[in-house]
């Protein structure tokens, strides 16, 4: 199977009906490679969201991908150039931190993610529940891109990649310095340096690195970049300056760093030129194409050097030389002896374990979900996340469904009159604390309103019913009834200083609207029965009062 099985999404039925939108985080093919298939062949007509640089670069890569698969490998049943174009027509471009309202409920917002030009993390929000999907991101700035950044958006769920769940990397500077030193030494010796790269992403970082180094050190040896795809993409790098790092953004007024001074386009004939040079050539694993051709030419000279800046799949020439093979068997039974130096240098643009933790710390999510990594490594990270942040962490396998409990807030409209009335009661407003309010919740045609009881009754056309609680409290008191009442009155007056406690002439006590009457017990004159009665609005005070009275009266008081 070449493309993901989209039938998982809808068992049957159209995708468009099922999905509100599609979001592409960045232009790497493992994140957007199936997009034309999905939209044109499977059939999806809804909106597709991506950032501006992604929208610009993505079709170039897709076209390249198509060319290689169809034209070179001769496969059929693949999307066509036209399909890519049609697909891109459905794309809506978004800016960083721009909130896009997809429909009435759903809104999305892009955050900067580093990784590659235009990579973004997306916050997806419905009401007050939100999910952040990170895509691939990088927390350490490099020579051309900044670091990923999230505000304290406190999403309910953070879905993060975890490629390097169990790795903590060394400082980037050491690696850069090593790289530059090796290149510099070789060039000074008069050797040639071959750097096999993939056309986009790391290639630009290394170009900037070498370009600035050449500038700084006043070096003269030529640097070449194999043409084609890169030229087009480089054009976009020049355009999207706002997406690059601080240095490039600040200096582009004087000079756009992507307008390379020292790096020129490569021509096949240059490979035979004498003298030192540095060549970036595609593809990155030395398995075919220009990089392999140049490699074959230069491999015999020990002054030369090849630097592999990334991972190599097993079976490629790149992997073989990295694992130390010095004699390679090429096609046609030729034996190629590798005398040139072989260097490995990892320039990866994924966040390491520390970076992932840092992002979680920034965003303060309530739940974390790990994707895009190996189960065993994720297990470790999951444990760490739960331990450090005390949030639940999930790592579902393919096809597995995870259910996450959230506490959605439900907005309720409150009538101004009620709000003012309620805030006027009690202590001054203290905004950071939740506060109890009395009112009636009306749920009417999909809207919630909090109104005063009277208004609710009026609106619903109901008559008001009084609800009263009465409670009897027995008190041991041999004195006369009115004396007991007086004692109770004094006691309450002493305790409830903020309330109006009144002794009525008919021998009863009122505390606000609560009525207390005392009668002698019919059987035992020593026991007095206190009748406490309150309406349900005063429930709080009423129950407090009964509990107070149940404790009995203080002894010493008359």
């Amino acid at each position, binding site marked *: 199977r070449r493309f993901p099985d989209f039938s998982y999404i809808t068992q049957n039925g159209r995708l468009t009906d099922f999905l509100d939108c599609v979001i592409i985080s960045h232009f790497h093919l493992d994140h957007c490679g199936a997009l034309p298939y999905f939209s044109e062949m499977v059939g999806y007509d809804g909106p597709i969201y991506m950032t501006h640089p992604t929208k610009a670069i993505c079709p170039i890569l897709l076209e390249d991908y198509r060319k290689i698969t169809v034209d070179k490998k001769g496969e059929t049943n693949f999307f066509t150039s036209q399909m890519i174009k049609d697909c891109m027509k459905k794309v809506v471009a978004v800016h960083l931190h721009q909130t896009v309202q997809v429909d009435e409920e759903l809104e999305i917002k892009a955050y900067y993610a580093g990784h590659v030009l235009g990579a973004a993390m997306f916050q997806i929000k419905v009401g007050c529940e939100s999910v952040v999907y990170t895509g691939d991101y990088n927390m350490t700035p490099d020579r051309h891109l900044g670091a990923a*950044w999230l505000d304290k958006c406190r999403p309910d769920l953070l879905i993060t990649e975890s490629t390097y769940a169990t790795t903590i990397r060394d*400082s980037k500077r050491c690696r850069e310095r090593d790289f530059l030193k090796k290149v510099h030494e070789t060039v000074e010796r008069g050797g040639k340096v071959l750097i096999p790269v993939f056309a986009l992403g790391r290639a630009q970082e290394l170009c900037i690195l070498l370009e600035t180094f050449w500038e*700084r050190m006043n070096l003269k040896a030529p640097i070449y970049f194999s043409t084609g795809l890169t030229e087009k993409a480089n054009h976009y790098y020049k355009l999207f300056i706002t997406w690059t790092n601080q240095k490039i953004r600040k200096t582009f007024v004087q000079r756009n760093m992507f307008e390379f001074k020292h790096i020129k386009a490569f021509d096949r004939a240059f490979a035979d030129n004498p003298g030192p040079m540095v060549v970036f050539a595609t593809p990155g694993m030395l398995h075919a194409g220009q990089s392999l051709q140049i490699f074959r030419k230069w491999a015999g000279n020990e002054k030369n050097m090849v630097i592999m800046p990334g991972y190599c799949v097993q079976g490629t020439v790149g992997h073989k030389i990295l694992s130390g093979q010095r004699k390679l068997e090429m096609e046609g039974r030729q034996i190629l002896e590798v005398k040139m130096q072989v260097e490995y240098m990892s320039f990866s643009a994924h966040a390491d374990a520390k970076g992932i933790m840092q992002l979680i710390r920034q965003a303060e999510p309530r739940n974390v979900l790990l994707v895009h990594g190996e189960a065993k490594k994720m297990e470790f990270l999951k444990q760490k996340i739960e331990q*450090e942040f005390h949030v639940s962490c999930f790592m579902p396998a393919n096809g597995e469904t995870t259910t996450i409990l959230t506490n959605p807030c439900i907005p309720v409209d409150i009538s101004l009159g009620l709000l003012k009335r309620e805030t006027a009661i009690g202590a001054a407003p203290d905004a950071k604390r939740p506060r109890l309010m009395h009112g009636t919740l009306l749920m009417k045609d999909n809207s919630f309103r909090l109104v005063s009881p009277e208004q609710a009754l009026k609106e619903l056309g109901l008559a008001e019913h009084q609800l009263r609680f009465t409670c009897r409290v027995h008190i041991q008191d041999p004195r006369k009834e009115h004396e007991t009442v007086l004692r109770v009155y004094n006691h309450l007056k002493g305790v409830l200083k903020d309330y109006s406690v009144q002794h009525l002439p008919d021998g009863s006590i009122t505390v606000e609207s609560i009525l207390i009457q005392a009668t002698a017990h019919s059987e035992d004159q020593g026991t007095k029965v206190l009748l406490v009665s309150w309406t349900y609005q005063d429930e709080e005070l009423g129950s407090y009062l009964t509990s107070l009275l149940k404790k009995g009266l203080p002894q010493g008081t008359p």
Partner: protein
Amino acid sequence: MAAHLKKRVYEEFTKVVQQQHEDLSTKKLRLTKPSKSAALHVDLCKATSPADALQYLLQFARKPVEVESVEGVVRILLEHYYKENDASVRLKIASLLGLLSKTAGFSPDCIMDDAINTLQNEKSHQVLAQLLDTLLVIGTKLPDNPSVRMRLVEVACKHLTDSSHGVRNKCLQLIGCLGPVEKGVAKEAESQAAKDVQKIIGDHFNDQDPRVRTAAIKAMLQLHERGLKLQQAIYSQACKLLADDYEQVRSAAVQLIWVLSQLYPESIVPIPSSNEEIRLVDDAFGKICHMVSDGSWVVRVQAAKLLGSMQQVSSHFLEQTLDKKLMSDLRRKRTAHERAKELYSSGEFSSGRKWGDDAPKEEIDTGAVNLIESGACGAFVHGLEDEMYEVRIAAVEALCMLAQSSPSFAEKCLDFLVDMFNDEIEEVRLQSIHTMRKISNNITLREDQLDTVLAVLEDSSRDIREALHELLCCTNVSTKEGIHLALVELLKNLTKYPTDRESIWKCLKFLGSRHPTLVLPLVPELLSTHPFFDTPEPDMDDPAYIAVLVLIFNAAKSCPTMPALFSDHTFRHYAYLRDSLSHLVPPLRLPGRKLVSSAVSPSITPHEDPSQQFLHQSLERVYSFQHLDPRGIQELLEFTIRDLQRLGELQSELAGMADFTATYLQCQLLLIKALQEKLWNVAAPLYLKQNALASAAAKQILEETYKMEFMYSGVESRQVVIIHHMRLQAKALQLIVTARTTRGVEPLFGMCEKFLQEVDSFQRCFISELPHMQGSFVDKLLDLMPRLVTSKPSEVVKILQATLRQSTFLHLPLPEQLHRATANIIEPTGESDNPLRFTSGLVVALDVDATLEHVQDPQGTVKVQVLYPDGQAQLIHPKPADFRNPGPGRHRLITQVYLSHTAWTEPCQIEVRLLLAYNSNRSKASTRVPKSTWSESLEALPPPENGIEGTIPFSKPVKVYIMPKPARR
């Protein structure tokens, strides 16, 4: 009817008048210049709409109000305030009240009550906030009135419950600025509402509005600044604020925590979720470190900066900041730094060519790994890798400060600093090089580190390279390979950037003298001597060879066995270099030769006391023999001047002082010579010669006095008086000479007038110094002033002549430190025989590189002068950015001068020199003389042209060979 009307009008009129009278009496309005307040009053009454009134107020605010009329204006404003319904007008009035009470010389206590009263009935929050601001101004204007302050604080406390954040903000600000600081006052005021300001402010740490929270923290910091000791209890509150949602709150909270950590470094605080306890400063350090990885870069910068000043922190916490455990697939990995160190200690050079020499080693216990450290772990690792360069610079600075106080930390942070040499932003690189230089006493560079450091020598930025040379000057290198490496790289640098010559030689000089024993085994190789064969003699003019020799000779100074390794030509070269580059080559004790340096050795041995004594003694001698016969005085002066000049040459520390006094004595000598009686009594035909001598002397004295005033740094006002006095004498001399040579009285009138004005202004400026000038020229002159003003020019001249002769010679008190401004043009060298050719009419850029020493404010004063052979002179003002400041008192000018001229037939030399522009106006302003008096007297002085009154050349001119070619058609 008409009469009735008239009566009513009259009645009304009188009524109005009466009311005004009442006002006056009850409010005790001091009679003010009525114009201002009255005009305002009329304007405000005229205003029909709030917009109009606002307009009037805005216009009114543009003009300053005199002190006397402030109160009246305030009354009128307040009156309108009560009447006004529009909030925006009231707001403006409130802000005007604040502005007015700022007026210098006005004491605002009289309007305080009214200002407080206005608060009572105000409904608009904005106006309330503005009024509180006004109260704040009033309060700050009355610093020594605690009761007023208490009252204001009380008012502020009352409004703290306001629902608007702006009002609460201002209240807190007011409490912070005016709250009682001393305990006693607080107790005395216990009865009143304001009890404990700290508590009141602390309560607002939890306000709902972030702006108010920030204001509360700021107020707390303000209290601290004003000297109140904050309570330790605030610490836990402040810690909670570190997790605030808003960056300004977090940023302020970091500051507060820092303050508390400095106040209570040794108190013990518990660690939450465990039973352990640590010192507060350590805890705070950990917390601030944590903030270095905050989401907002403003907070990160703040945190990184503050880390540097927490020197009491324990060393293991400090060292944690550089800690970062690496792992790969859960297996421990060594950092590149550790690998480099290991390779070094195992005696192997880094091959760096093995794939997987960074392969992960041992398994890690998953439980033991701490991914997010609450403590200080890796704070600097984060800070130095931050995406914002502001944070990185702050981190480097902090690293520097901490490393300066802790040698072990310095050793540890070295790797990280070296890494920073490769930062993408030049400022950061430069900063880290400087940092490294500052801590270089505490460290010794390993070879691999040195390697990285030296790689930066190829940087195309001159600043970076020079900073690096300075760094190498004071670095300790551990091995002879290190020295060799450094030399090789420096030579490489020299061939790539020949302009760095001077700096590289200087660097090698220090490198050699610091590591004599390491240089010793390298000598044969460096000089390429051979035990059996004679090697060819190297070219003496080769800068690279000179560089090597500088290194070796400086090492040989403290390594007596080294000269034995030299070959013959080396000795010859030594003698040559010792003469030509004496500042780089030290005197050596060479076998079989007499000590070449004996004559010059005093310049090295610092006998400070004797020479200083000598200086003072010789001065004393001059002053004491005042009543010698003129011949004797002249001779004495001449000798002393000669002595002083020689002393200046020998003693570089005293050069400024010696030159300064020598110049002064020279002036005096000139004056005496010019006034010799013999000359003045000669017959008329000989006037001419004598006049020429005197006027030349006067001119020279004037020049010298300007030099004395402006070319020396460290001149105090005591000296300035003497200098001005000397100048006055010179001017008097000039007047006399002119009087004798010119026929007719007309021009003399003007000159006399001018001179008397100058005397007058001198008196005004230096009135405080006059008592010290008994018997001096000016003293006598001032006595005669009434007579002078009324008398004719010829008489004036006569009086002047007499006074000049009779006046005593003033002592020149010497300041502590005196340095003469010097400049040395390094480039162009003036040695080139190849003319600089360019097409006439077009411009050619000439690179000028000069070092300036002891120049104050070089950006404003240093100019470049280009003199063409046709006498045309060009004055060029270098850009302020062309000046760099490599050290205290030193500046470096690197600029480009554009030359252009019409076509010449032959190449010819132009002269480039540096000038020091001066402006007596500016210098006088700096001697704290009220400007107003000076702006009047300025008219008497030559008109300054765009701020420059004159220039003093202070560098040797350099000749540049140029050739403007005619343009080809």
